[in-house]
């Protein structure tokens, strides 16, 4: 080991960060970051041209972008992990809706006469939060168990959960919204709290994915499931854990949204699953599994937020915005497919 040894020693082990693919991985994140800067600059210029004002240097607008990104971003953190295992989670948006309804029903004030559970009002905030997280945990466990044990494609399993959870959200109060939360519950969604929650969650799972056995096995399963299996990884157990985490993060987003809006409606979170997937894929998480990172997804979320609020800023009608969102999702996936193709041909 002459030359090899020298290179290895010259580049000390101090960079265990490159768990999943060294330079290429880092450059994905760097590319995404440059993309973010570029897109923000484009809107800045358009802002001065069409609106005669700055897009970026507007504290109010920035905080709106960040808040928008934060809620769906919490979901995207979970979805990122699912996608790295080679799976997909289409149920997150519906879990948001169901969780919002259920959590809010345990968070109502006693002074409101038509509470869902009139005997269960003014409960300490921890109770609606835990019940809410339990909703996502349950849904995620079902997703994971279906995928791990029946071997049905994640797409189908989570599509079923998407429809079921949305149905359950509507059934829960026969379509009635649930409102009037306690102050302590409402506080979860106020001010910049959602952003702090998002950042804390991002940091937590950044560490988990990069520095723990959990992360290593997540990448290994997405990279080569049979290799993971013969290497002694309990693939089934791990997949269930990943989907359960994704479910709980969707629930957390549901709690935050309900708390922020002071009301819960069964339709909350519609399409959030696609936005979350888009954030992850824009951030370089590969739909074929094995590659991606939380840092990438956070940048992807920021790009997504900038584009959406950029179009709002330019006073584009909401219809255009939805169409553009669709185009962004498709474009991100196409870019991923091209990256894959380049990768396979480069081998």
């Amino acid at each position, binding site marked *: *080991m002459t030359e090899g040894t020298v290179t290895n020693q010259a580049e000390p082990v101090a960079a265990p960060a490159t768990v999943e693919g060294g330079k290429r991985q880092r450059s994905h994140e760097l590319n995404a970051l440059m993309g973010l800067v570029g897109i923000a600059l484009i809107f800045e210029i358009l802002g001065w041209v069409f609106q005669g004002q700055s897009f970026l240097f507007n504290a109010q607008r920035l905080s709106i972008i960040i808040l928008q990104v934060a809620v769906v971003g919490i979901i995207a953190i979970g979805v990122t992990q699912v996608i790295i295992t080679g799976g997909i989670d289409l149920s997150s948006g519906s879990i948001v809706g169901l969780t919002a309804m259920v959590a809010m029903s345990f968070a109502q004030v006693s002074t409101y006469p038509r509470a869902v559970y009139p005997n269960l009002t003014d409960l300490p905030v921890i109770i609606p939060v835990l019940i809410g997280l339990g909703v996502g945990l349950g849904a995620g466990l079902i997703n994971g168990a279906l995928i791990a044990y029946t071997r049905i494609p994640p797409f189908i399993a989570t599509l079923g959960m998407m429809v079921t959870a949305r149905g359950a959200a509507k059934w829960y109060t026969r379509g009635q919204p649930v409102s009037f939360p306690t102050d302590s519950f409402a506080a979860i969604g106020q001010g910049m709290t959602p952003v702090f929650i998002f950042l804390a969650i991002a940091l937590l799972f950044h560490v988990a994915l990069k520095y723990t056995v959990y*992360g290593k096995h997540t990448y290994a399963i*997405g990279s*080569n499931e*049979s*290799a*993971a299996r013969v*290497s*002694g*990884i309990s693939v089934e157990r791990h997949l269930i854990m990943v989907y359960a985490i994704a479910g709980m993060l969707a629930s957390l987003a549901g709690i935050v949204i309900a708390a922020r809006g002071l009301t819960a409606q069964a339709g909350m979170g519609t399409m959030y699953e696609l936005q979350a997937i888009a954030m992850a894929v824009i951030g370089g998480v590969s739909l074929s599994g094995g590659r991606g990172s939380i840092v990438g997804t956070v940048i992807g979320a920021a790009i997504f937020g900038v584009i959406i609020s950029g179009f709002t800023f330019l006073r584009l009608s909401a219809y255009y915005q939805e169409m553009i969102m669709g185009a962004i999702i498709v474009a991100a996936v196409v870019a991923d497919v091209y990256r894959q193709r380049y990768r396979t041909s480069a081998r």
Partner: protein
Amino acid sequence: MANDGIVLKTEGLTKYYGGVHALEDADFTLHEGEHVAIVGDNGAGKSTFVRQITGVEQPTAGKIFFGGKEVAFNSPIDARDFGIEAVFQNLALADDLDVPSNIFLGREETYFNLGPFSFLNEKKMYKNSMEALERTGVKIPNLRNSIANMSGGQRQCVAISRAASFASKLIIMDEPTAALGVQETTQVENIIRGLKKQGIPLILVSHNLRQVFNLVDKIWVFRRGRIAGMLEADKTDGNEVVSLITGVKTGVHENASYI
């Protein structure tokens, strides 16, 4: 617990995949320190046999004895706990991970035990991987590269180093040199000779009879899911092996391309 120096023994080992009788009634014995080959035509059941004795699959019928005791491996982890390591025919490596991650996949070194959330000791895994590769004479320019960026030979060498460095009781290689160039093949053969010196028993699945005769003590011949016979390498020749493989008793020409 008299095991008569027998490391591994199977009795009536059988595996059906639905209607396919991939392996039938295999009685196989491996002694301490012994290096044996398994040969046979494509589809003879060699890989199937390997999968049964490594816990990757569970046999339809039959018994497996390891170190004199009957064992039932429910997963590769069970086999691994017994000191059995295998290099599978289709490379069992995770492409997107680097070399140390692959070598330590499923048995990562950690700092403190927090279950799945234990922190990885990347430093130690890197160092130990370096040593494992050096011991087996494998040269990989940069261990931090993901496996996807490596040649077939380098990948195979990583898989072999992994097995060789963890195997304490038995190592099984399923066609380890099938996709390798001359130099890499020699390297793998040298690793195998090293294992022989260490006294670690080996089962080598190979189509290369020259290699088989160079490396092993005994040759087990599989034909259509059954064990057709066992020959001692120094008491037989290519002709006899080939006629067992094909089931045709007539001698094969001296310079048949198979040899």
